[in-house]
């Protein structure tokens, strides 16, 4: 079996130790790190994403695969020191100011990284200014905000308004998610997209990145 296929398959099984070993072996065999990343690791995560979307597997299996992907990325990271890890876009994520729930946001971050995005995770309790300053400084394509409390949803609106007020809405997209948030709310506050779960969020971010670049 081709080593990249083997990496992809072991990743799908959530075998992080084997993925780490195989990634190192592929590097030794002079396979390009970019190919290992795209065809082995991201390729495996894409299969996992599709299976999850089709309800063939459940969240724990997705997260085990993600751990295996991170194990492979740890091997590749030193090889991309000069130019940084290749990515298909940059996303700043966080739970909004006043909100300390971050499991949902973490899952979205994991899935975004699995799809090949660079993710800057600001954690929780993030103020609108911090989202925007970070996205601007890092040249991010998208800001992803999460809220689990109805009381913290207005922070999302303030962030959208601030982004528009600073004339950055054309460059940086905004996606929102979280239990009390809906498609209607996203439209109402002028956000570009709403992600109802982690896989849907990844698809929306891909669309947004295409639209904003």
């Amino acid at each position, binding site marked *: 079996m081709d080593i990249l296929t083997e990496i992809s398959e072991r990743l799908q099984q959530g075998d992080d130790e084997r993925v780490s070993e195989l990634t190192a072996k592929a590097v030794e065999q002079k396979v390009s790190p970019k190919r290992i990343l795209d065809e082995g690791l991201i390729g495996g995560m894409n299969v996992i994403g599709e299976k999850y979307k089709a309800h063939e597997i*459940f969240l724990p299996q997705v997260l085990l695969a993600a*751990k295996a992907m991170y194990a492979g990325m740890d091997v590749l990271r030193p090889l991309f020191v000069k130019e940084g890890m290749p990515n298909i876009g940059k996303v700043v994520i966080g739970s909004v100011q006043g909100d300390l729930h971050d499991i949902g946001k973490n*899952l979205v971050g*994991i899935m975004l990284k699995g799809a090949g995005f660079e993710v800057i995770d600001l954690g929780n309790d993030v103020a609108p200014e911090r989202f925007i300053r970070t996205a601007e400084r890092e040249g991010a394509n998208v800001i992803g905000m999460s809220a689990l*409390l109805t009381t913290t949803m207005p922070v999302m609106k303030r962030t959208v308004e601030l982004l528009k007020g600073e004339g950055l809405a054309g460059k940086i997209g905004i996606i929102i998610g979280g239990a009390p948030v809906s498609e209607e709310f996203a439209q109402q506050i002028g956000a570009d997209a709403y992600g109802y779960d982690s896989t849907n969020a990844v698809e929306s971010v891909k669309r947004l990145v295409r639209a904003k670049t």
Partner: protein
Amino acid sequence: MREILEIAADEARPDQDSVLETQGIPPGAELSKEVKGLLERASDLFLESSRPGAVVADASIPEFEVVYKGKGLNEADTPLDVIFRKADGLALFAVTVGQEVTEKIDRLFKTNDFALGAMLDSVASAGTDRAADIVEKQYSDLLSEQGKTFRSKGVLRFSPGYCGWHMSGQEKLFEFLRPEDIGITLLESYLMKPLKSISGVLVAGDKEIFLFDDSYPFCSECRSRSCRRRIKTLLGESRSDERKGAV
């Protein structure tokens, strides 16, 4: 009456289905060896790192009216506003499984152990609910001992942030209940710390007073609709006091 209750971690350990439900896994689904292993490990970690506790304090209807009114931000028309006025007994409560379990979840995510971290989060959430169920049951038993409940009566809990009761109601609830004594504090956003905590009011009364249609405007935004299941349980349609399949 104001009482601090200790709950054993094993008692708060939730059943498998309620944990898997929060992971999006339907009841009866075939679980892989890996998922079963995660569930067992998360359950063990919950037993090690949770410190369940609760505080309960009786409130009269006029006292609760002040708590419920809070900052005046509730929806104009809510089921609780009707129900509590018909209650035979009311008690404010707060329950937590402690801070250590949340810290453990954070550490697991930081070390890329996402699947175990997410599973422990689900066990801890379901465990907090289970601890609240225990408090509800103890309150019911207490009223029963006092001869205040019989078969046609029941106890149901409501929390700020749900069913039209605004989150800001937490402020008055905390003033009255003082859950700081069991380590629960209120943040500016009305969120509780530890995160895995539940607060609210226990309402005791005739089972009929709890019946309401889920057609309030805010019901359409509610994803859990757990009121339906809890009312059904209260009415005895699916009640079982026996513990089934604890993880």
